[in-house]
């Protein structure tokens, strides 16, 4: 895809430690098209958040990008010096973190923080910035924005704060937004509201986004495509409906089956035996092979490439033409009932 807003190719992130180098991300590739929301989903330690931090250049030391490239509208951003990166962060890439309280300064009013960001990135005057901040607060659904703009973060509830953070991420009209677990700290009823706001704003402004979450429900609600990560590698990328309804990778199939259904008869949940490997003990071949119910010989020897299968991409030997049984895409036995 050449018109991708964000393009990640073979991204490798390493953490050098005293006991050797840990690979947190190992050859991640994906594209995010214009106006598209890509969900990045995985369990703890799969490398979701690291993906977000690597893109925006905020890896915690000693973490470093050890290979691959990240392009924003064709321009490489993974090897920029800090000063140039600073002009991209906030201006061209907005960021929404999990806990809104850590993104907002408790000592300044919401209006001051919004106006400062707008002034800095858009070079607007004080009065215009303030007006713009009020408009933004109205857009994210904060009632009476003219009055609320002079409130401090602690005067807002959790859901309202996260709306402010979304406004902050979007105020410089970035090309791209990274939202890292934006609704995890919120209650279900508020979560639904915040997801709607996020999705609507990205749609209206044509902003592309990465939505990092562990919650398949959030992915189903907000994303267009989804990348499933496992042990720092991509298991599967595809349209949300395909991946959720008819997952290809045995890991995704297990993952979907392990989520309690809202409609079934309360049958036993699918269990994936074992746990995700630690970074210092990733097995040879496919990282999922010791837990995989359909493991073959080749899975233990060779790492599967990203294989095109039925519109999606999956890293699993089952879908390689060279293996004997090319399975047609069908509702898997272990998946959730349709």
């Amino acid at each position: 895809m050449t018109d991708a807003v964000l393009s990640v190719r073979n991204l490798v992130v390493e953490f050098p430690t005293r006991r050797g180098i840990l690979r947190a991300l190992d050859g991640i590739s994906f594209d995010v098209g214009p106006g598209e929301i890509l969900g990045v989903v995985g369990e703890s330690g799969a490398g979701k958040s690291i993906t977000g931090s690597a893109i925006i250049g905020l890896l915690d030391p000693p973490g470093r990008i050890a290979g691959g490239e990240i392009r924003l509208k064709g321009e490489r951003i993974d090897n920029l010096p800090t000063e140039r990166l600073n002009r991209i962060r906030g201006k061209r890439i907005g960021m929404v973190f999990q806990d809104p309280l850590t993104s907002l300064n408790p000592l300044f009013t919401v209006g001051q923080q919004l106006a400062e960001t707008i002034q800095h990135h858009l070079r607007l005057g004080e009065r215009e910035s303030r007006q713009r901040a009020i408009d933004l607060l109205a857009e994210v659904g904060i009632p009476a924005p003219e009055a609320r703009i002079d409130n401090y973060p602690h005067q807002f509830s959790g859901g309202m704060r996260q709306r402010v953070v979304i406004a902050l991420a979007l105020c410089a009209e970035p090309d791209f937004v990274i939202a890292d677990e934006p609704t995890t700290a919120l209650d279900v009823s508020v979560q639904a509201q915040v997801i709607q706001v996020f999705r609507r704003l990205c749609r209206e402004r044509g902003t592309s986004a990465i939505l990092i979450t562990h919650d398949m429900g959030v992915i189903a609600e907000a994303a267009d495509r989804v990348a499933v990560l496992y042990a720092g590698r991509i298991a599967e990328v595809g349209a949300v409906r395909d991946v959720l309804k008819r997952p290809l990778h045995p890991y995704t199939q297990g993952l979907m089956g392990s989520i309690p259904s809202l409609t079934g008869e309360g049958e036993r949940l699918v269990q994936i035996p074992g746990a995700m490997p630690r970074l210092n003990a990733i097995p040879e071949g496919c990282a999922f092979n010791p837990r995989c119910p359909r493991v073959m010989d080749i899975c233990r020897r060779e790492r599967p490439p990203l294989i095109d299968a039925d519109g999606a991409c999956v890293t699993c030997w089952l879908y390689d033409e060279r293996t004997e049984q090319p399975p047609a895409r069908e509702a898997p036995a272990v998946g959730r009932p349709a």
Partner: protein
Amino acid sequence: MVGPAPADLVARREAASDSVVEVRGLVRDFDVSASWLHRTLSGEPRRVVKAVGGVSFDIRRGETLALVGESGSGKSTIAKMVVGLLPPTAGSIRIDGTDIWDPANAPKLRDLRRRFQMIFQDPFASLNPRWRVRDIIAEPLDVFGITRGRATRDRVGELLTTVKLTPEDGEKYPHQFSGGQRQRICIARALASEPEFLVCDEPTSALDVSVQAQILNLMRDLQDRLGLTYLFISHNLAVVRHMADRIGVLYLGGLAEVAPAKAMFRDPRHPYTRSLIDAIPDIDMTGRERTPITGEIPNPLDPPPGCTFHPRCPFARERCRREVPRAFAEASGALVACHGVEEGWVGQAPAGQKAV
């Protein structure tokens, strides 16, 4: 599976619909006033948060009652009072007919305490990092004088096997285990005193979904095998639906609705239950219409008068603003605290939002 259920337990579970736990008019206030000096100088009154305001429910033998609610609804406060970790301000909790907070029952309590245990949310905080796992699990055996010496060692190994760990794991320390394995250790410890009733406060909230599935399956197996009764506390409606026989929905310290699990999802009665079910992300992608609930939970320091849900309720009328609704039993067996449902102006759930 952990093996077939002993016949007598199954018989007991099926024949008996008697209540293990009876909670009546449970109230818990927390005093959050500033210090006396501060109040005197600035003329502030005392401030009291009503975390739980008059909750009543029964848990029948062998069933799972789930309490579900958003943060601040009083779920965990109720759990702590039921296991005896937090004294109630008013009301009573009877376990097997004995009021656990009545001082007159104190002598009986030691024996009773063996029979109910708790599993906590955070398996990283609820295991002593300096103790070996075998000592952690042996502690209840020791405290209640159930076994000693060699028998204890055998029993610990047995308990570890029950939760799908190995007896050798007993030699390790908690930090050597993953979150899911630690939660298994917590379950093994809770089972050590052979309880009949377990209070599980968000037992899987700290775990990934695939690990959550392992723990939920284990808990169901144990219930089948040992005839356990669960009070299951969670904010996750899908998990609650999977685990519970009956569900109580809490809102701001009060029960809005108590109903059988499947019936509640098929036909939620209380407007809050409806909007809560409506707010669950549609993971089956059925394209069902969703109307997210507006507003947020009010400040419990200053709860709205009348029905506490009325500022967010799409059906609210004048009576809801004045009068606190009392729970009434519907023909279906659901208990609902809503004027609108009682008087019939909150209609059936629209066809679009019913489960498929």
